């Protein structure tokens, strides 16, 4: 046995080296995959936070519109328009096509309501404009809440 080892120590060392290299490769792949999953999880959670913040802002705007505080609503709408553009740009790769379409529509609704509030005092708006405001109050916060839910669902799937 000793003789066999002394005669083939080079081959045995090579074989052991090969085995260690293979194990190192397997473990590094596992670690890389785990790191990738952790990064995906963090990104999705952050998308959820952005959606949650947007959803809160939309609810605030609705409250301002309902209590006829046009100036406060207009300011918050401008912020939410920017936030929506940010979400679309920042999370382009994470958002589905339908979510992006929905955000594009929300942003146009925000522009519309911004322009309506700038047009005349809320009490003087016509019936059609008031209908548009009511539709905004009904649809936009709900849409952000649903997008927040979709983002959370992705987080749950990754846990």
């Amino acid at each position: 046995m000793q003789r066999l080892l002394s005669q083939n120590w080079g081959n045995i060392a090579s074989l052991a080296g090969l085995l260690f290299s293979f194990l190192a490769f397997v473990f590094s792949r596992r670690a890389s995959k785990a790191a990738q999953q952790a990064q995906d999880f963090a990104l999705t959670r952050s998308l959820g936070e952005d959606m949650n913040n947007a959803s809160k802002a939309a609810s605030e705007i609705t409250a301002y519109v309902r209590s006829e505080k046009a100036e406060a609503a207009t300011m918050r709408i401008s912020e939410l328009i920017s936030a929506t553009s940010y979400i679309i740009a920042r999370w382009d790769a994470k958002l589905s096509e339908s979510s992006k379409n929905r955000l594009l529509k929300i942003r146009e609704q925000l522009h519309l309501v911004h322009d309506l509030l700038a047009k005349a005092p809320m009490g003087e708006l016509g019936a059609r404009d008031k209908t548009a405001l009511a539709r905004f109050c009904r649809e936009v916060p709900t849409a952000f809440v649903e997008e927040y839910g979709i983002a959370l669902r992705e987080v749950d799937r990754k846990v």
Partner: protein
Amino acid sequence: MENAQALALFEEILARTKEGRVPWEPLGSDTLLAAIKGKRSLLLMPYTTTDSWANGRGGPSLTVKDSSDRELLTVTSEIEGIRPEALQELYEAARRQAFKVDEQVQDLLSDLRSL
């Protein structure tokens, strides 16, 4: 060149709208909106400009915006080759689709027949 692109775009949107493939939706009382593949939005208004009282003036206009909220181009009948009637035709076809006019008329007809 810019006009040629605008004309080509308009013709494609008109053709696709007639086929019912552009997802037009109402936005407010008279503006129509379609989000395309999560990248751009189309805004179709029954007027070209608004006066200081926010009253619409001129024929329909079509605005293309990108995902960053920038207006890429506006199609009006001032562009050579785009007739005001063609823009009106687009607006009417999109409006019928957005408000589901055909389905509603069919529904109303069957309701009336059952009276």
